[in-house]
């Protein structure tokens, strides 16, 4: 993986110093909260219900065992013993003190990490394919380009105060595993007929209040020009993106308003002046960065391990796990292992300090000391020898990391929701737990097969509910109660689509039953080997809607009257929460 040189380290060290001084000025009152807010946000520091939340950047989701241990250290020393992995491949800590945050950043800098631009109206952390470098369908390894883009976007002077946040994702496989259609800029690194490397560039995708699938602005941009071309897109956006209405400020609104052809014309006009200028990438730089992403020392192995097959035949939990959590690797004798952070009953994406340390150890022992964070909020060991799978499964199982549910119903993507977030209208985490417990039976889940269930506590869509096959969203209603909308038909990947809402919203306790009814329709209507999303696309929404609303919901009375009830009593709700 990429290692800092003295320049990278210097920039991150300078940031720690700058931030430490900003916090000092805030604590002394020199800076007002209004002035401090954008400064702390550009460092990933949010004020939430219980206190400060720090979002740490994990560039394109890739970390070393050493860095994972640092997360465990931060969880223990500054937080309450756990962290939360996010849909943008980052990690968040929820219970921090402002005074501690400069020290946390210094700790992070010591292992080549930071929280730069993990929030705020700037270019955010670059995300990528969690199987980069090991996937069988990979055309070009996206990681060197993701790193080059990371450096380019870090403290870019012109684009630090954009109309709104800006997210870039890069994928390099035939199948899109980075949700590039749902990003402000989505890049697919590929090869043309001549074998030259370049990018298909999508622009104006995004979720939130107005979900839109990105449009193609350029079919093939040679790799040399990717930085200058992205620069021109940003410059047009910075000048003309709306700043009068926060809900219309994302680039997708500008692209829609102008139309993709006019937007492209403006970008090309800007680009004409900087094309082939000093910002053009050099082969030396790409080679230099790519040298950090060469293959680890793979052994020459066979793909078939008889011991593994024997064990599989005798052990149902293991064979389930093999089926769902172990993915094919491009090198014979190796496998990609997904460690599930979605064990029913646990909070999706949460990991304790003990689990983090355990994952760091497992990565060192079995996967060249590297871990990836997925945008589905799981962890990946990308280079595991097939003959180590049994031992890995046993050892990871001791830390509750082997739920055999990757890509299944209980592999729920969820934002933190109203338990933590001041924006949320409703809780996500307890609902995710309730759903996971209801459908805990793995045989049932395996029978249902591939399905994605994404939940957000509000329209901002941190849980990416629009692209879930089933999407659940907390909605604002006049009574300020806790209501959820349910949508179906969303999908990510090459056939990305935005889900459609099935009808009037539901209460907290009704949602699991709604999902059950949706599944009943699927089980009734599916043809052989048809996934949930295929059935939705074939028969349409109507049969689902009809069945869900056909009869009353016989559910117990709401057990939790207060949607913030789960906030432990010792944490007095601070005055600044807009919710109270």
């Amino acid at each position: 993986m990429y290692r800092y040189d003295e320049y990278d380290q210097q920039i991150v060290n300078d940031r720690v110093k700058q931030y430490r001084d900003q916090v000092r000025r805030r604590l002394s009152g020199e800076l007002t909260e209004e002035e401090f807010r954008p400064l702390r946000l550009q460092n990933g520091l949010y004020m939430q219900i219980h206190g400060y939340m720090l979002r740490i950047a994990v560039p394109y989701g890739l970390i070393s065992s050493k860095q994972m241990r640092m997360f465990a250290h931060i969880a223990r020393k500054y937080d309450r013993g756990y962290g939360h992995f996010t849909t943008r491949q980052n990690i968040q800590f929820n219970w921090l003190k402002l005074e501690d945050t400069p020290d946390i950043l210094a700790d992070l800098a010591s292992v080549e990490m930071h929280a730069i631009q993990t929030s705020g109206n700037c270019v955010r952390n670059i995300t990528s394919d969690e199987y980069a470098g090991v996937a069988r369908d990979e055309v070009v390894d996206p990681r060197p380009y993701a790193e080059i883009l990371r450096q380019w976007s870090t403290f870019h002077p012109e684009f630090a105060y954009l109309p709104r946040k800006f997210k870039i994702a890069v994928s390099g496989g035939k199948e899109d595993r980075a949700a590039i259609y749902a990003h402000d800029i989505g890049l697919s690194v590929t090869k043309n007929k001549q074998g030259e490397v370049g990018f298909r560039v999508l622009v104006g995708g995004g979720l939130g209040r107005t979900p839109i699938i990105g449009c193609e602005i350029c079919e093939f941009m040679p790799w040399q020009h990717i930085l200058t071309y992205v620069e021109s897109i940003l410059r047009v956006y910075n000048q003309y993106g709306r700043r009068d209405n926060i809900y219309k400020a994302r680039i997708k609104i500008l692209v829609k308003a102008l139309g993709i052809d006019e937007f492209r014309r403006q970008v090309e006009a800007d680009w004409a002046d900087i094309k082939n200028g000093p910002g053009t990438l050099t082969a030396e730089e790409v080679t230099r960065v790519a040298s950090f992403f060469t293959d680890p020392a793979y052994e020459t192995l066979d793909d078939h391990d008889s011991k593994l097959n024997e064990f599989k035949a005798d052990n149902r939990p293991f064979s389930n796990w093999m089926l769902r959590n172990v993915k094919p690797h491009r090198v014979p004798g190796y496998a990609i292992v997904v460690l599930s952070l979605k064990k029913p009953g646990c909070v999706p994406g949460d990991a304790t300090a003990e689990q983090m340390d355990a994952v760091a150890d497992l990565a060192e022992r079995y996967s060249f000391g590297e871990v990836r964070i997925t945008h589905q909020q799981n962890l990946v060991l990308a280079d595991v020898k097939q003959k180590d799978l049994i031992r890995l499964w046993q050892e990871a199982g001791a830390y509750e990391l082997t739920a055999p549910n990757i890509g299944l119903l209980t592999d729920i993507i969820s934002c933190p929701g109203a338990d933590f977030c001041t924006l949320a209208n409703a809780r996500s985490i307890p609902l995710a737990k309730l759903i996971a417990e209801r459908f805990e039976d793995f045989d049932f889940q395996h029978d249902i097969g591939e399905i994605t269930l994404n939940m957000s506590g509000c329209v901002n869509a941190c849980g990416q509910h629009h692209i879930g096959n089933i999407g659940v969203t907390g909605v604002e209603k006049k009574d300020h109660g806790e209501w959820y909308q349910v949508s179906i038909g969303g999908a990510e990947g090459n056939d990305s689509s935005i889900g459609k809402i099935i009808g009037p919203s539901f209460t907290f306790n009704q949602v699991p039953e709604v999902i059950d009814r949706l599944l009943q329709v699927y089980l009734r209507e599916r043809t052989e080997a048809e996934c949930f999303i295929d059935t939705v696309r074939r028969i349409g929404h109507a049969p689902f809607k009809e069945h869900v609303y056909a009869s009353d919901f016989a559910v117990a009375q709401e057990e939790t009257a207060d949607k913030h009830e789960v906030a432990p009593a010792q944490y007095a709700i601070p005055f600044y929460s807009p919710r109270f």
Partner: protein
Amino acid sequence: MIIKNNAIVADDWVVLRLNEQDSAENVMIPEGRVIVPLQVWLKQRNLLQERTEIGVWLASDERPETLKEDIDKFSVIAVDFPKFSDGRGYSIAYNLRARLGYVGEMRAIGDVLRDQLFYMQRVGFDAFAPRQDRSIEDALKGLADFSEVYQTSINSKLPLFRRVQRKGNAAASLA
């Protein structure tokens, strides 16, 4: 006092801002060194270009190309930041320097605060009028927040990867 070329210096330019009752056509321009709004320049151009020294300022929603024909006539061009979080001024500055070839004094005015100064100097500002209620000595420190940068920009013609020899992965080159 303003910050100019990395130092705190005395300054006697006056920034003219229109009141509600003023119109760009009729507003009286005081004698001396005045930085007028773009609209005033456009309406009173004939009168103003007689002056030996004149400055103009752009609002964040105005286009620098408007000054294309006049760019050499100004002793100072200022860019207004109505709120420090309005980042359009950075692209205006970039365009003035990179596209219009403006080489004179470029001044940041309005909601100009210490923590924005480093970025501002990178896109071509060489003069800063920090907000009056803040210490200008503190603001000056903001220009030195970082000792290294990655990207090409107005004050750094080459990106880091073209400026210095950077090390690749030693392990990979041995293999």
